């Protein structure tokens, strides 16, 4: 029998689960022999309230390994996460939503109540619609990363996470050793050609393609930051490389930071602004700087904009 394993997803898109499937042919021995999956809503039919739905408390079976994807944004997510923590010996937060809040934590930059009200008032929505509140889980006050709510034993970020790293983490657990994961930045793993500080002093939007020759290798393409594009490589954790270079760079597109900060507890927005300033680039030329926290807005990083102070009449 394999190692008992439970999977759960919270506020998520299922990209992490697809990344698990993208392990490819190694997946079959992994799920049929090495692991014994006891709970996984995406793949199997174990139910929270008993198989015929008569139970009253949410139950997940005991498991040696637990894998949680997604951020924590409503009371059901929290209940599921707490049950996973209780039932699993080792709990892994998989993907940037679970580790840093991910894209759903962009909501932390908004007034949540007002946003939700407006979502039910769009031009195509029937007039008079209210925010649903019957038999649907109520939202938390903001979107949290998993480690803000329970103890997490192993963090594996990425949007999506790299299948090779998922295999490494699971194999290391099976072999009872620490996983080998890179501590480098995206830039450290990028083959693009850096020529040092140059003529760039402002950042341009990605409305033109990068300069490169399609039939030449990436090592012949000049660094996208040096070409004047915002590339989050300097402040972002590596790990996305699948074919010898960061994934977005292989498509000749700049990095947007989906593996979260390279520095433990780093702030991708502030760190990037510092990186630009130290290279003589005007950080104010970056349109919408707050969205540099688009993958790491949990942990109190991204907050609603302060409302304009209205002077009280004397």
């Amino acid at each position, binding site marked *: 029998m394999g190692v008992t394993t439970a999977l759960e997803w919270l506020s998520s898109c299922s990209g992490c689960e697809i990344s698990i499937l993208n392990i490819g042919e190694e997946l079959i021995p992994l799920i049929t022999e090495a692991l014994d999956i006891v709970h996984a809503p995406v793949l199997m039919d174990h139910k929270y309230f008993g198989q015929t739905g*008569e139970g009253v408390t949410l139950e997940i079976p005991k498991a040696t390994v637990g894998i949680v994807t997604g951020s924590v944004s409503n009371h059901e997510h929290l209940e599921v996460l707490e049950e996973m923590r209780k039932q699993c010996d080792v709990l892994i937060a998989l993907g940037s939503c679970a580790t840093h809040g991910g894209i759903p934590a962009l909501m932390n930059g908004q007034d949540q109540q007002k*946003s939700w009200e407006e979502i039910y008032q769009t031009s195509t929505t029937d007039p008079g619609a209210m925010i649903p509140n019957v038999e649907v889980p109520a939202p938390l006050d903001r979107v949290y990363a998993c480690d803000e709510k329970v103890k997490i034993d192993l963090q594996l970020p990425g949007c999506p996470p790299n299948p090779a790293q998922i295999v490494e983490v699971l194999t290391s657990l099976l072999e009872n050793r620490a996983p080998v994961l890179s501590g480098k930045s995206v830039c450290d793993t990028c083959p693009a050609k850096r020529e040092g500080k140059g003529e760039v002093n402002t950042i341009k939007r990605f409305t033109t393609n990068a300069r490169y020759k399609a039939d030449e290798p990436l090592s012949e393409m000049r660094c996208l930051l040096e070409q004047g594009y915002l590339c989050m490589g300097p402040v972002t954790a590596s790990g996305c490389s699948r074919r010898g270079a960061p994934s977005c760079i292989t498509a000749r597109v700049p990095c947007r930071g989906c593996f979260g900060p390279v520095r433990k507890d780093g702030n991708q927005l502030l760190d990037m602004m510092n990186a630009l300033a130290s290279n003589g680039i005007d950080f104010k030329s970056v349109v919408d700087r707050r969205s540099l926290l688009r993958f790491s807005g949990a942990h109190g990083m991204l907050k609603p904009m302060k409302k304009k102070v209205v002077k009280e009449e004397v």
Partner: protein
Amino acid sequence: MGTVLNIAPVSRIEGHAKIAIHLDDGGNVEDAFLHIQSLRGFEKFIEGRPAEEVPRIVNRICGICPWMHHLASNKAVDGAFGVTPTPTGHKLREMCQVMAHINDKILHFFFLASPDFVLGPDADYSVRNVIGVAKAAPELASQVVKMRQLGQMMLERFAGKAIHPIAGVVGGFAKPMLEEERVEMLKDARTLLDFSLYSLDFAINNVFAKYMDVISELGNITTGFLGTVDRVDGSLRLYDGKQRLMKPDGSYVDFEGEEYTDYLGEHVEPWAYSKMPYAKSWGEGFDLNLAAPRGIYRANTLARINVCDKISTPHAQAALEQFRSQFGRPAQQTLLYHYARLIEMVYACERTIELLEWEGITDTDIRAKVEPKAGRGVGIVEAPRGTLIHDYVTDKNGCIEKANLIVGTTHNIAPMNMSVKQAAISLIKDGNYNEGLLNQVEMAVRAYDP
């Protein structure tokens, strides 16, 4: 006081949902609901973002169909900025989109749905899953995993990322296709076409024939349909075309994407975060009543197969003719979504090959000139789960001022609720229910691949 059976989570689907079946004192179904449990708020938190960044934010709406959101979003921003992508940019996007359909269909049919058919709806839950299939039919499972991986890696090798893509850009595409990439992909696409024909054959002979009694009853309702067809000849289209809204009697109207607000409305029920689109233009309102539904139409594979006049590729057209001769047009049986899914998979493979054989595909003119500005754009593609609509208004800096999204799955929220209720009423009588029967209620949901 009756009992409520809470089937949670609904499993082997892509999202977060639960089924609640309310039984009366006699143990018969009083009511049944599919509650949609999650809301993230993309429409709001993309406000203020530079519009050209949005295609690489909204792909996170769905990790199974990120290409659909990525490209619908690119089309919407094209519209807002008044840009027409170059012909090669346009075709490279379409190629990625139809290729993503192939993988999605393999995933849904074999990984998520097939355990109900290969192992049977009543098999124990511990084996009624893809792991059980891998143990019961190892050769089939190995082939399925190989083919899905082939499709995913084709996309990843060419476009950098298969999940949460970045290669589609406003005005076209970020990188051209090299001749050696084209040759390699063409070879792989032909392998996938063979597999798609095998899959259709396998399903017709081993699944649909065997389960015809279930197919003719489970979750059946009568609705209209929505899909995309070619502007000229009405054939099936996934990436671009005009919208076609069909009534249950088979009559239909066609409209352009920008006009969608004249035809579709969104109803909100207090028990589901997801809105429920309905056919506003029919002027009959919204009602989930099983005997007399109002405004209810369906999207996704069966809908597209119903609304199209034909399919432009030969193998898929032959399959469509066989399907129509057996089930008519429009076909209403809910489980036929699976059959339609496999016909579409054949089309997606054939269309991929067509695009790879198009002489301009390796051209390097891949991106038109783009200037951020104020405007409105509606981008529509057919996602695996239904017509996907991204509607953006940009400000003078080319940042998002307002966004309205109608996501594929949501078209089917109302019909799924009806199918759940229909299935529950017909399967649960006088307090008699068990795991197998309750799984059949879930099968009615699973057919829609939500």
